[in-house]
């Protein structure tokens, strides 16, 4: 307990959590509030919870909230985590940080939007939250007719919310619409057709269709986990008005219909009676955008929300100890790393890059900043395609110094390192700690911390960051996509790392369809990266969700929130 208090104090003294920074810094700055002041403030909110545990049970205490979700399940089931004796409420409230901008499947580009679409639409395939393998969904089976032709079978008898049938025509139309590249004047955000090299699609029978690609595309079924099937009669894009309408009034074939959207207040979904799959037990799902983390936490404690997103590590103990709250945490797919410009001296020498990897004292960072939740990563690839033989670089400052000496790097060599602030969990703080680690092995780091909008809006587009740059990349699980992150052709790869062996093997991988052979190639590619170190690989970011104790939902590594299968 003592230790926990000390830790809490330490965390309190550190700056505010991931969320506080991302969402609030602009406002705080506008007020002349510095980040430390804000951090202390959050701690003040968090600290009190220990001394006086909240007494009200779920949903009963909050005067005036019109909707008390989970009030049906107001008797907290003591000590049960997720399963066992849990009651499924009629209505569930999910609080995310921001509202959706658009629910057009081709224009959405953020996780909060995706989380709504996954209820309203059917993705062609789905990902098993445990194994992360791709599984059939509205397409029930698929096969390669040849290397460039895929044949898919749709589930029979499914309907869109407007009554239209889900059939091969709808599937083909969904691909054709994505391949147009533009909706009105807006460029399409959905990348699937580009990534597979989409050529054409043709109907075989009512429920069977074929897709032709310009290259073998083993990751096709994987990409289909985030691709929606849409009814052609609604998504015609005939004129500006039609285009604007579908942004806000999505029509899909998913387990829920959108019935109301009050912008920046809430989105209400109701279960779709004619859903083809298992009927959801939860009848109403409400998404509320609540930007302020402390407001989300209070709402969860008062039983006004069932799931809240992006709980800062500092607040985790408070919710874990809460009477009717718990934390669901999962190691996500987002890889956080420090990119190394391999075209800049002395980083063209791989010994120097290895030295940086040995220099990171991850355990201290983990304890001080992450509440002990973060493991150092060994490879940039997510499960299920990780090379499990690789171990993370250990903390070995002596070895790092020796390697630098071997490479002839002079003591006190000055390097600039860029880091964003307010985008990833504890990003700026982590960068500070690592800069110190690098100083300890004899470098002199000039740390340049930039607000995320500047970092993403200016520094990264310039494609010329400083020799070291802190970054995180999103969560694919196909293996090939993660490995592409360090490929010279990847547009966000600023490392300029050149390795003919890697490029050749990668080319082979993208042509190979056999799973065993693919895994072997992926293992080899990971070994090359491990040895060559174009990055200092840090960790796969852990996502923290606050959940009401009796609500049986668990966090998924792919950042998705889906409640349609809760209790089924």
């Amino acid at each position, binding site marked *: 307990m003592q230790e926990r208090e000390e830790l809490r104090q330490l965390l309190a003294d550190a700056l505010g959590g991931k969320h506080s920074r991302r969402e*609030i810094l*602009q*406002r*705080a700055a*506008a*007020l002349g*509030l510095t980040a430390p002041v804000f951090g202390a*403030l959050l701690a*003040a*909110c968090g600290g*009190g919870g220990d001394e006086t545990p*909240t007494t009200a049970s779920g949903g009963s*205490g909050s*005067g*005036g*909230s*019109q*909707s008390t979700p989970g009030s049906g399940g107001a008797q907290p089931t003591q000590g049960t985590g997720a399963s066992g004796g849990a009651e499924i409420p009629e209505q569930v409230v999910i*609080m995310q940080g*921001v*509202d959706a*901008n*658009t629910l057009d499947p081709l*224009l959405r*580009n953020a996780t909060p939007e995706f989380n709504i679409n996954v209820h309203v639409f059917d993705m062609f395939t789905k990902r098993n939250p445990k194994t992360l393998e791709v599984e059939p969904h509205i397409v029930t089976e698929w096969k390669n007719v040849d290397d460039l032709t895929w044949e898919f079978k749709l589930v029979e008898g499914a309907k869109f919310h407007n009554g239209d049938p889900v059939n091969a025509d709808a599937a083909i139309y969904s691909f054709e619409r994505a391949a147009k590249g533009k909706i*009105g004047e*807006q*460029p399409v955000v*959905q*990348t699937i057709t*580009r*990534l597979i090299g989409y050529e054409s699609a043709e109907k075989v029978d009512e429920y069977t269709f074929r897709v032709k690609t310009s290259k073998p595309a083993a990751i096709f079924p994987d990409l289909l986990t985030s691709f929606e099937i849409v009814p052609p009669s609604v998504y015609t894009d005939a004129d500006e008005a039609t*285009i*604007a309408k579908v*942004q806000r009034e999505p029509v899909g074939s998913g387990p829920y219909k959108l019935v109301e959207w*009050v*912008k*920046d*207040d809430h989105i209400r979904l109701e279960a779709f009676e004619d859903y083809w799959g298992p009927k959801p037990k939860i009848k109403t799902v409400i998404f*509320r*955008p*609540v*930007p*302020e983390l*402390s*407001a*989300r936490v*209070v*709402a969860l*404690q*008062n039983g*006004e929300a069932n799931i809240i997103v992006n709980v800062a590590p500092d607040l985790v103990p408070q919710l874990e100890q809460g009477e009717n709250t718990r934390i669901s945490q999962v190691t996500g797919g987002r890889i956080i790393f420090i990119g190394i410009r391999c075209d800049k001296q002395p980083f063209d020498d791989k010994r120097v890059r290895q030295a940086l990897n040995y220099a990171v004292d991850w355990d201290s960072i983990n304890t001080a900043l992450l509440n002990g939740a973060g493991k150092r990563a060994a490879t940039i690839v997510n499960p299920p395609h990780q090379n499990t033989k690789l171990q993370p670089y250990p903390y070995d400052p002596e070895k790092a110094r020796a390697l630098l000496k071997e490479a002839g790097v002079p003591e006190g060599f000055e390097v600039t390192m860029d880091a964003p602030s307010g985008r990833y969990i504890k990003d700026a703080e982590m960068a500070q700690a690592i800069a110190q680690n690098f100083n300890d092995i004899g470098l002199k780091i000039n740390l340049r911390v930039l607000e995320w*909008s*500047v970092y*993403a*809006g200016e520094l990264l*587009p310039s*494609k010329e960051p400083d020799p070291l740059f802190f970054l995180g990349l999103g969560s694919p699980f196909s293996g090939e996509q993660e490995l592409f992150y360090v490929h010279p052709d*990847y*547009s966000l790869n600023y490392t300029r790392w050149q390795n003919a062996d890697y490029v050749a093997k990668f080319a082979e991988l993208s042509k190979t369809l056999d799973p065993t052979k693919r895994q072997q190639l992926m293992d080899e590619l990971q070994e090359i990266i491990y040895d060559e170190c174009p990055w200092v690989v840090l960790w796969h970011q852990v996502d923290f969700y606050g959940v009401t104790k009796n609500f049986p939902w668990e966090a998924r590594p792919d950042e998705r929130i889906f409640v349609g299968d809760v209790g089924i």
Partner: protein
Amino acid sequence: MTRYIIRRLLQSIIVVLGVTLLVFVVLFQTGDPVVLLASPDATKEEIEQIRHEMGFDRPWYIQYADFLGNAVRGDFGISLRQKQPVFKLVWERIPATLELAVAAFVLSVSLAVPVGVISATRRNSIWDNLSMGLALLGQSLPVFFLGVMLIFIFAGKLKILPSYGRGDGGLLTELQHLILPAVTLGTFSLARTARLVRSSLLEVLGLEYIKTARSKGLAERVVIMRHALKNALIPVVTVLGLEFGTLLGGAVITETVFAWPGVGRLVINAIQQRDFPVVVGAVTIIAVVFVVLNLLVDLLYGALDPRVRYS
């Protein structure tokens, strides 16, 4: 009077133009939104292509002229992120912001005047010291801090008020949702107005005509309420006009803290997402509202006090 009105109108137009120009220049200093719009794996050429198609490769003054030309026709463009007309996005949020600003305004005025009067008439009493001390605190507390504290106390600990949103279950719940944001937003204005009422009343109370009134043997109550307060409130009224505009603008922070679906949050989100048309459009619309309010106050003032017209 006509010349005065025309002069004030022209000034107002210049102000609005100035605001739009400023927003435009500042925004374009920070780069353009194309990179964030394009898909993450877009190549440099594709980004250039999008930039060209969306017109972001033109010089900023051309884009500015373009914007002005459309804006006078009421067309503020389409949101890059939400793909909806900007005017519609702003318009559908104005009721929420107005509701919050009016509630904060009513709250602050209805408390500020009595507090100011009591302080002034009982100068240096405990009352005066206490209320002016609190006023100082109210003026110095960052809105953001106050909001989070109120959530912590009234929603977190006491559980008597909701912490987020506008509520949608009838008048009573909506009022409950309104209380915390309105208090948060109105506190600064309440503190400032109370101090202003006090100092203004003190000034008037020292004037000769008050002495005359007192020497006539009028009751102190009558002296203050009927004679002193009338004159003391003139500067207060002027400030209140501006105050309401400030409340509209200050709602940005309050709306974010309390997840209030108003214009302020729209703007904040748009800035974070580099949704330029929404930022420029919303700021312009807010500026117009602000300027119109000011203009009305000025005109009213000019009608009340002829000296103003000639200064």
